[in-house]
Every structure is written in structure tokens, then in C-alpha cells.
């Protein structure tokens, strides 16, 4: 057929040298430069920005972690889950219980282990993972859409438990979350008192950095997964479970494992949520939270890690911004809509519009804009590898027989 011939690979181990691995793409110097620049800005932000934005930033960081986790499950693997709020709750409650002090609050007698917050955080992530693991055998057996409805169950059961198990959760009043601290350094207002360039670094400033580190770690971990063996397996099983299994992917095993990973992400997001609000309450972890997370990944772009980040920032920050600047935004505040309502209308409409007109979400739009700035006649295709095409209408370039591969 061609000049090159095919010979048997020596055992299962192919010859080492040759061309570079396909994963190694040509990269321009521009991208790392922008990344470094962005990071410097992020690091310097607390010196210049008021507390509101830093607090919003930490809330967004928590949402980023959770949204990346949900996107791995829904966007990358095609498993619709509305249970995300439940796993956030497991993480948040575990943290509050493990690191909280026992004590009474009115009639309710609260338990607490009083362990260092970092232990609480780790336990929160692990227990959320365990909850995911317990549910995963069922999740792996259900067809995508059955999972969507079945996962509703976890949210309602979760809220019920939060309301009932007063000793641990504080009941319907909730309970406060202990400050985070690491090796004696408190992410609060003192212990130690801290000034950087004469700017006081209090809770908001400190949490900002914590959020930055955690979100970055969550981001890198997810990107690495997507670009390697497990990521490829997940994306293929989303597109066709039969094809994936025939190519050697243990479909049920992978569905179960991604459920585990996703719920661990949610657990961390839950801990960060508790830190951001300073307390937990049952109504925070209802169906609405699950739907907000779904909104994040749909708006951002299903299957794209960058998209999850953009979507999380947008969805988590918008209500806060609306609230703060209610006077400046038409229709919001005063006799108009409450900030939360306005944000919800916007999210709902945005979900519908994105699915109808821009299935790749914000990430897709960003890519297109970035594509404009590149040289024309460069590489023809600018899909990132993790952009799903499943949800899009068949494009004219699609081959005729492709519709029937499910």
C-alpha cells in the first residue's frame, strides 16, 4: 500500500525511538507566556482588590473544582448526574464534623472530632469518594438517562439526612464551619496577623490563595487525565459504549471509577463551599445546587476543562455581582427582580440557548475568538481534543453513514 511496511511489534512493547509521541504537539511560546502572566496577576490580586472580589473568587474556586468534577462525569463520559449536590454535602458535612468542636447549640447537642482542618478536608474528599463508590455499581449499570433521574434520589435523601441527623449536621439550622488552618497557619483574620506590602492579609486574602492552589491542582489533574489513557477511554465510551468495550475498555469499570473521581472532586468543592460560606445548612445542598452545577458545565462547554472553569466563574459569581450592583443593573433590585431570580432566569435562558445554538459553550466561543487571531491558513482545525461533537448537529463535513453508530 505505501512505502512503509508493517511489522509485528516486538511483544507488547513497541520500539522506543521513533517520532515524538502524538500527544506532544507543537506549542507556541505565546501560550506559556500568557499563563505565567495570568498567574502573576492572580497572585498579586489581593494587593489591589477589595474583599468582595476575593470572597467571590474563593467561592468561584470551589465551584471550579466541583464543575470540573461534574464535567468529567457528564461531559467527558456522558453520564448525566443530578446528584452532585449530594456529594458536595458529604464533603462539607464531613469537614464540619471532623474538624468541628463538639458543643451544644440550644436543644441540639452537636458532635465533633476537633481534628486539624486539613484532616477534615481529606476526610471530606475521601468520604464523598466513598459515597460515590457505593453508588457507582448502580450508576455503572444504568443507561445514561436512567442515571439522570435515579441520581435525583441521592439529592433528596441527602437533604433528608442533613435535616434529621442533627448531631452531625446541625439539623435544619445547620452548623458553622471551622476555620481552615495548615500547620498552625490560620486562614482567618489573625494567628498570625499578616501584612504584605502594608496590605493586611486577613481571611479573604488567605482563602483566595487557598482557592487558587486547590482550583489549579484540580484543573491540572483533570487535564492530565483527559489527555491520557483513562481520558481517551472515557471519551470513547461516551461516543459509543460498544466501540469502547470492543477496543478493550472495561466500560462498567470506567463508569464506576469516573463516578468515584467526580464525587471526590465534589467532596473537595463541598469543603470549600463550607469554608466560603462559613457554615452549612441543608437547603444549600438541594436540587437547585445540582442544577447550578449542571448549568456551569453546559454553559462552559460539555467535556471541556477550560469550559468548566469559565462556566463555574460565570454561574457562581453572577448572583453575587447582581446582588452587589443591584442598583446599577436594569430590572434587578428595587421593584424589579431579586438578584437570585435574575441570575436564575439568565442561567435558564443561557442553557437553552447554548444547547440550541452553541453546544460547545463558552469554551467553544473562546476557541473561535482565539482562532480569529491566529494566522489564516494555519492549522485548519482548532477543536481542542476535549470538545465533544456528540451534541452538535451533524456538520456538512460529516460522512454520510455516521448517524447510525450508536
Amino acid at each position, binding site marked *: 500500500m505505501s512505502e512503509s511496511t508493517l511489522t509485528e511489534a516486538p511483544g507488547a512493547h513497541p520500539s522506543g525511538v521513533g517520532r515524538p509521541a502524538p500527544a506532544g504537539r507543537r506549542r507556541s511560546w505565546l501560550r506559556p507566556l500568557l499563563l505565567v502572566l495570568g498567574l502573576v496577576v492572580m497572585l498579586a490580586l489581593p494587593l489591589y482588590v477589595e474583599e468582595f472580589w476575593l470572597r467571590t473568587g474563593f467561592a468561584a474556586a470551589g465551584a471550579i473544582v466541583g464543575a470540573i468534577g461534574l464535567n468529567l462525569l457528564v461531559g467527558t463520559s456522558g453520564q448525566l448526574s443530578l446528584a452532585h449536590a449530594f456529594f458536595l454535602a458529604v464533603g462539607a458535612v464531613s469537614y464540619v464534623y471532623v474538624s468541628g468542636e463538639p458543643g451544644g447549640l440550644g436543644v441540639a447537642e452537636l458532635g465533633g472530632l476537633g481534628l486539624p482542618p486539613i484532616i477534615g478536608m481529606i476526610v471530606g474528599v475521601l468520604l464523598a469518594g466513598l459515597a460515590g463508590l457505593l453508588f457507582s455499581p448502580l450508576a455503572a449499570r444504568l443507561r445514561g438517562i436512567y442515571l439522570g433521574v435515579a441520581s435525583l434520589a441521592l439529592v433528596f435523601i441527602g437533604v*433528608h439526612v442533613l435535616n434529621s441527623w442533627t448531631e452531625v449536621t446541625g439539623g435544619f439550622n445547620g452548623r458553622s464551619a471551622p476555620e481552615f488552618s495548615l500547620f498552625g497557619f490560620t486562614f482567618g483574620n489573625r494567628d498570625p496577623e499578616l501584612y504584605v506590602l502594608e496590605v493586611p492579609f486577613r481571611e479573604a486574602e488567605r482563602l483566595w490563595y487557598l482557592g487558587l492552589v486547590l482550583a489549579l491542582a484540580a484543573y491540572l489533574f483533570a487535564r492530565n487525565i483527559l489527555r491520557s489513557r483513562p481520558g481517551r477511554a472515557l471519551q470513547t465510551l461516551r461516543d459509543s459504549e460498544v466501540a469502547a468495550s470492543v477496543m478493550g475498555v472495561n466500560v462498567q469499570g470506567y463508569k464506576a471509577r469516573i463516578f468515584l473521581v467526580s464525587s471526590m472532586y465534589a467532596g473537595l468543592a463541598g469543603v470549600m463551599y463550607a469554608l466560603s460560606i462559613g457554615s452549612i445548612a441543608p437547603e444549600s445542598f438541594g436540587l437547585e445546587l445540582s442544577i447550578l452545577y449542571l448549568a456551569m458545565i453546559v454553559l462552559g462547554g460539555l467535556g471541556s476543562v477550560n469550559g468548566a472553569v469559565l462556566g463555574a466563574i460565570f454561574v457562581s459569581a453572577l448572583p453575587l455581582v447582581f446582588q452587589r450592583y443591584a442598583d446599577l443593573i436594569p430590572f434587578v433590585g428595587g421593584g424589579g427582580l431579586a438578584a437570585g431570580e435574575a441570575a436564575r432566569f439568565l442561567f435558564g435562558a443561557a442553557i437553552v440557548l447554548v444547547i440550541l445554538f452553541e453546544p460547545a459553550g463558552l469554551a467553544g466561543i473562546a476557541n473561535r475568538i482565539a482562532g480569529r487571531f491566529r494566522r489564516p491558513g494555519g492549522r485548519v482545525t482548532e477543536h481542542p481534543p476535549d470538545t465533544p461533537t456528540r451534541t452538535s448537529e451533524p456538520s456538512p463535513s460529516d460522512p454520510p453513514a455516521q448517524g447510525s453508530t450508536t
Partner: protein
Amino acid sequence: MTQFLSLLLNGISLGAMYALIALGFVIIFKASEVVSFTHGSLLLLGAYSIARLSEPLGFLLAAVVGIAITALAAFVIERVIINRLRGAAVISLAIVTIGVDIILLTELIRRIGSDILNVPHPWAGGSVRVGDVGISENRLIAIAVAAVLIGLFFAAFKYSNWGIAMRASAEDGETAALMGIKQGRVSALAWVVAGVLAAVAALFLVGSPTPGVSPSTYAVALRAFPAAILGGLDSTGGALVGGLLIGIAEAMAAGYQDQLLFLGRGFSAVVPFIVMIAVLMFRPSGLFGTKELTRV
């Protein structure tokens, strides 16, 4: 024993309403491959419209107009959004209905606020006793109406052109299309029928012993989702069985809540979901749902 019979009767009544909602859920899935998460807010729309229109129009006319409004809303959603997405992935379709649900629900809750809107049923809060077994008149009428509607539905599904067309397109969309069946029309009609069923269920759900229409009516509607799933998403008979099963289980848990107190107050509201999980553990496609045959 008396308590048990009474709970059973109430459970059947509740289940009949869940069955109406679940039937709509199932026919939408059969006709347009959409799992409609809009169904909860559609039901709330029906309840809200009936409650608000009762004052100017009187109960009967308000009920008719309210049902019509709900059906119209379902029709518009299908035409404006779902119809454009024909052939899209099931998951995208489900998500788009969640988007619609957010909009509709936000608006309804904003309008209802913290009020409880009363629907002036002519049968009001009366109750009926057969021996020692008691049930509210509202619930009793609900059983009768649901039985008639479900009977009509199954007859239509079996014999009418629409029913045949719908079953054909659910079976094999492409072939049905070749035979001249307009899938768009089948799907639109399915949404309308589902809207009607949901609004009728709403009419009774907000009557005695429930105080009236409030945002929590939406939560009641959500409990019909497990009914559809555990019966099997593509099985109309399954929706009926699932609805009754969920209704009875919930009523029992509510009735015996003193004995179940160790599971927490308000446990009965969670029971439908627990029943669903239990069924799915053993039958991942529900009790009567068909397993998907993979074609490659």
C-alpha cells in the same frame, strides 16, 4: 387493619395522580426521546393557573382554562425548542428541558411567593367514610377521574391514529417516517397530552388534604419521576404500576411515621426515591422497560 386499609386507599389515590404525571413523562420519552425535567414546573403552572383563575372564572372554567394553558405551554416548548433538536443526544435534550424548567419555575415561584394559593374545589374539604376507612372526597374523585383518563389514554394509545403512529415511531423512527408518519406532529401531540395529564393531576394534588398551591407543589411533582423510571421509561403500563407503587409506599410511610421516626421526620417524602433505587438495583431498565439493543 383499618388504618392500613385507609392508607392503602389514600395511597392508591396519590398513586393515581403520580401515574397521570408519569404517563405524560413516558409518552414524551416515547415520542421525542426526551426525558422532560420540565414536567415539574409544567404541573406547577397548571396548579397556579387554576388557582389564580378560580376567582374571576369560577372553579370549573378555571380548571378547563388552566389545563388548556398547561397543554399550550407544553406545545410551545415542544415546537420552539425540542423540535429543533430532533436527533440530538438524549443528554442534551434532558439538559435543555432543565433550562426551561429553571425559567418557568423561577417565574412561578416569584409569582406565588410565600403564599399558599387556595383552589376552591366544589367538594372542598369533605371526606367520605366507608365503615372505618376514611378518605377525602377530593382524593376519591381523583381516583375516579384518573381511572377514566387512564382508560381513555390506553384506548387512544391502542386504537387511535395518533396512538398507532406514536407506537410506530417509538419502535422505529426512520421506518415510521418512511410510512408517512410525521414525527413532529406525533411528538407535539404527546407533549400536549402530557401537559393535560399533568394539569389534571395538579388539580387534585392541590386539594384536600393538601392546603393549596405553594412552591412545594413542585416537589410533589418530582416524586412522580421515580414512578416513571421504576416502571420503565418507555412503558406506559409501567408508569401506571410505578405510580401506584410509589403512591402506596409514600402513603404507608406517612401513615406509619411514628414507627419510622428513627429515620427522621418527613421520611415519607423520600420514600419514592428509595423505592426507585431499590428497583433499579435489580432491574436497571425498570420493571417493564425494554433493554436497549445495541446495533453496530
